[in-house]
């Protein structure tokens, strides 16, 4: 009996919830195949679209480069501290997202020590600032999604058998070659999972651009958000959401094609 209920209730509850999810095609108040929404959305906001993809892409690459060595270090040198170190990696998640970003606003603020130090060593001009620049937005996005990158990298590096690396070295590969030919390819599923987990939420993010950037740095998330909640332009905003989804799906598909679907599905499961 219990199984039966599960059988019936589950797909039903499911349908209900999923229908909640895809209530997106609301082309105004009559359904008229108004493709015009799409063309206006794209022609008016293509710079925000491109900026979203650019910022998200940059943040993803930086996060990958920054966190790979650390994931490597924990996986191979962590020893019995592994769990504790992993806890440190996810520690930022224990602080509310918005508060974390506000903390960056404090750190990068015009009178903060980062800006002053950079001014002292003349990286920034004396009136230079970090807040309200693209750099700050990318830095914020990178920081906020760093654990999403580091964890999958760690998981896949952890599974690499150190004996394989030893074997490569026994076969006269030097350290670099052993890394390039053995460790890196074996950790590829983690790289794929990490880049996707970072890129997808980063492309839709609007909090970093709002708090750390200026209107010149606004991403498509900011536009969608303000169209929905400020100007009540539901049709345009819905069209933009769909373009964002489609763009992300397209990028993921291209990415999957390049790295091979096997890694992608392997990492997805």
């Amino acid at each position: 009996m219990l199984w039966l209920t599960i059988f019936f209730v589950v797909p039903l509850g499911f349908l209900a919830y999923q229908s909640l999810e895809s209530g997106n095609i609301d082309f105004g108040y009559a359904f008229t195949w108004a493709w015009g929404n799409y063309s206006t959305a794209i022609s008016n906001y293509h710079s925000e679209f491109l900026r979203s993809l650019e910022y998200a892409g940059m943040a993803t690459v930086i996060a990958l480069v920054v966190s790979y060595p650390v994931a490597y270090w924990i996986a191979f040198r962590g020893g019995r501290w592994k769990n504790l170190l992993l806890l440190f990696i996810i520690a930022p998640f224990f602080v509310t997202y918005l508060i974390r970003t506000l903390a960056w606003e404090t750190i990068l603020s015009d009178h903060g020590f980062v800006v002053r130090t950079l001014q002292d060593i003349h990286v920034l001009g004396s009136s230079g600032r970090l807040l309200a620049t693209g750099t700050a937005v990318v830095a914020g996005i990178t920081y906020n999604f760093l654990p999403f990158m580091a964890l999958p990298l760690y998981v896949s590096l952890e599974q690499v058998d150190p004996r394989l690396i030893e074997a490569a070295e026994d076969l006269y590969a030097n350290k670099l070659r052993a890394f390039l030919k053995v460790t890196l390819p074996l950790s590829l599923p983690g790289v794929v999972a990490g880049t996707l987990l970072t890129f997808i939420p980063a492309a839709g993010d609007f909090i970093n651009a709002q708090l750390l950037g200026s209107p010149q740095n606004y991403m498509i998330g900011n536009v969608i958000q303000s169209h929905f909640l400020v100007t009540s332009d539901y049709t345009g905003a819905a069209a933009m959401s769909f373009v964002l989804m489609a763009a992300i799906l397209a990028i993921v598909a291209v990415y999957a094609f390049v790295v091979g679907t096997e890694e992608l599905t392997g990492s997805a499961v």
Partner: protein
Amino acid sequence: MSAVAVQSSRPRRGVLASAWAFVKRHVLTVYSILFFAYLLLPIAVVVLFSFNNPPGKFNYVWHSFTWNNWRYWNGVPGIQSAIVLSLEIALVASLVATALGTMIALALVRYRFRTRATTNILIFLPLSTPEIVLGASLLTLFLHFAFVQFGYWTILIAHVMFCISFAVVTVKARLIGFDRHLEEAAMDLGANELKTFQKVTLPLITPAILAAFLLCFAISIDDFVVTYFVAGSSVTFPVYVWGAARIGAPAQVNVIGTAIFVIAITLALANVLLQSRRAKGA
């Protein structure tokens, strides 16, 4: 002469080489320590500024130390009700999502039904959709029905929706490594299905259910984007922070942030210690 020079330079090269070897050996360690410092810096800032006594509205510059923000944590209008609403929603949403998620996971792993593949994809979709699209689509859906009052129920529905996926994934992982023979043994010993489920299946998957619940709770209480879209005039804690950030967030926001951090990190640390002790015992 030259022999002397060679001899005297040899130990120096040795020092240099060993210094280089030291750097090479530890460069990764040093780098990782820097990485963790970077990772933890904002948290330190949050904690530090919860003790700040800002002269004006803006809590950006360190002024002087005070306990007052902690003593009067609810001294700012609206913050207490926002926290209460957040906790309420997180609790109910995680309970519902975990219950539904567990059932879905059981169905997915145990049964082959026609919509199984579709269900799997449906579970995966919310995980791979940007939050803003989830929020936007829920908003349009709710707008469709004129009778929907934005507030508690819309937030709750939204949170249950995106939590379910996480719950399913967590419980499923445990179920896949589950030995079905144990259930068969229970049935052979005369237990009916309900009893088997109660006495065998449930205890074995309880850790996963608990983990799913905690995960849902954490995600729900931290969610801003989706909530912001469907909240109407209701204010959860993240929505409160967002509103406050525009006019300068009060130090009390840091107090609550620190408190949430301390509670969560304590739980997580306890879990890590427990695991390592268990590993040692085994």
